[in-house]
């Protein structure tokens, strides 16, 4: 009797599990077909031979991966480091890090400011941050480009005031790309940091002050450790899209301050070296995922701070 009842229950539970899996299945299938499968094709392509007019020839080759780092000299066939690629990859990493740093520099005080407003007005300040977050990245890049381009707002202003005689060339430099990325990715830093500060129990800071902690000491030893998960989350959210950025460096950096994403595009276009482009794509994706896993692990380590 008893075993029969529990048997029926097990059957019911299994039917329930099956029903829920089938509910999740359509979304999983769509992502598998149109996001995971194309990525797998990219991995395969990175091990093939480039065709003469782009595309690939179905012949195994490690040249794609090889030429991410090395290049063969045209004249004497000696091996050297692919300086052109490596400098672009290095610049991407540095610019992504610098963007993360700058968004922190401006984002943390902004998040703090919003989180310490009266509850009634906080939502409105946050709305001002979320609007740029959800508005067109291309349009926002055009907007920041207008400010610094050769005939742009700053140059017109300075020329008009007679401060300068000729426009200052600010576009197509690393600085321009950095400015553009900081501008477009800033909301991504503010959102999670704000969420962390808002949860912070300010009685803890009061206790620290009561125990004669200085303002800086309290900030460093009480507040910072507790809002760190938010800062880590913000850094991930900024670093990852910055590392793979395509639109902003293309508009602000042009051909002179290219980033990883633009180099990939180049290999699939004029470069006509799809395997190299695929190898660059796979390595960028791997790097992003490693960065993600590492920071999530650290993030989980700080999870106890969820008071």
């Amino acid at each position: 009797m008893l075993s029969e009842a529990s048997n029926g229950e097990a059957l019911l539970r299994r039917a329930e599990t099956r029903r829920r899996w089938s509910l999740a299945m359509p979304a999983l299938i769509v992502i598998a077909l149109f996001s995971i499968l194309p990525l797998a094709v990219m991995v395969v392509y990175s091990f093939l031979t480039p065709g003469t007019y782009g595309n690939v020839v179905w012949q195994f080759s490690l040249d794609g991966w090889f030429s991410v780092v090395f290049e063969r000299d045209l004249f004497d066939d000696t091996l050297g480091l692919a300086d052109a690629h490596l400098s672009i990859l290095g610049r991407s990493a540095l610019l992504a890090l610098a963007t993360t740093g700058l968004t922190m520099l401006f984002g943390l005080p902004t998040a703090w400011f919003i989180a310490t407003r009266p509850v009634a007005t906080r939502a409105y300040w946050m709305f001002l941050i979320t609007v740029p977050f959800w508005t067109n990245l291309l349009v926002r890049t055009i907007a920041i480009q207008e400010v610094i381009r050769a005939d742009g707002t700053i140059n017109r202003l300075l020329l008009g005031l007679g401060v300068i005689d000729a426009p200052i060339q600010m576009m197509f430099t690393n600085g321009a790309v950095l400015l553009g990325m900081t501008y477009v990715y800033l909301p991504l830093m503010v959102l999670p940091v704000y969420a962390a500060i808002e949860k912070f129990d300010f009685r803890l800071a009061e206790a620290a002050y009561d125990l004669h902690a200085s303002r800086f000491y309290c900030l460093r030893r009480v507040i910072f450790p507790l809002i760190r998960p938010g800062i880590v989350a913000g850094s991930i959210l900024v670093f990852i899209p910055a590392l793979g950025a395509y639109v902003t460096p293309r508009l602000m950096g042009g051909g002179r301050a290219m980033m990883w994403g633009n180099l990939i595009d180049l290999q699939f276009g004029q470069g006509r070296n799809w395997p190299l482009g695929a190898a660059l794509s796979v390595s960028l994706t791997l790097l992003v995922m490693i960065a993600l896993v590492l920071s999530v692990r650290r993030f989980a380590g700080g999870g106890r701070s969820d008071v």
Partner: protein
Amino acid sequence: MSKRKFSVRHVPGAAPIAIVTFVALYAPVLILIANAFNAGPVIGRWEGFSGRWFVAAIGNDAFRNAALNSLIVAALAALISTSLATMAALAITRGRRLRGEGGIFVVLNQPLLVPEIVLAIALMIVLAQIKQATGYHGLGYLIVAHSTFCIPFAFMPIRARLEGMDLTLETAAMDLYAGRFYTFRRVTLPLLAPGILAGFMLAFVVSLDNVVVSSFVKSPGQETLPTYLMGELRRNLSSEIYAISALLLFASVTVVAASWLITRRKP
């Protein structure tokens, strides 16, 4: 009130930096919009206030086609991704922990974990094969591609809403002999509606704003608003380009504001 008391919430320098940040965030966009209202074609040479570039843009066939394509793709991609995301969110949140839930979660968010340019080119390679095999070059590819990367965006608010709804009401309905479907339609769905609407709107905006995937997946001659704008940028900047940018900005701000108003109502 006149003399400020010592406050633990006060950090010197935070407020000025925050104000600078807000100004820096909005000034470029406002400058862009202001320039779109210039009567003259050359940016920076002010010839009076006029909406003529907006009229010119809307009167332009290429712009109208691109806008129509954008709306069709965004509406269908939002519809598809929201439906799929709702089903997946129901699967994860209703009932006890599902084995393999973590795996479902990772797959649902996978499109966010891949750099956009990589996803765009990978899709281009795969879809080019299908285009060649079938001979079909329509909007379907853009709709499918957008539906895919919109799933995680639609999923977020829907799951958040579902996690805030406990199972008691649904259990009560079932106890009163409501069938599974009836319970869903009359209890779960009305409670979940704001989450679904928010998910739909976010998916719509994300699709409307997409440049990178669209420019690699679109067939020759096909344009969405952002790819059309990207193409126009190769020419000289003009007041008309700024007017198109302002229109695009206006479209996303409207949707975001609407979704904000909806999600502010608590469950």
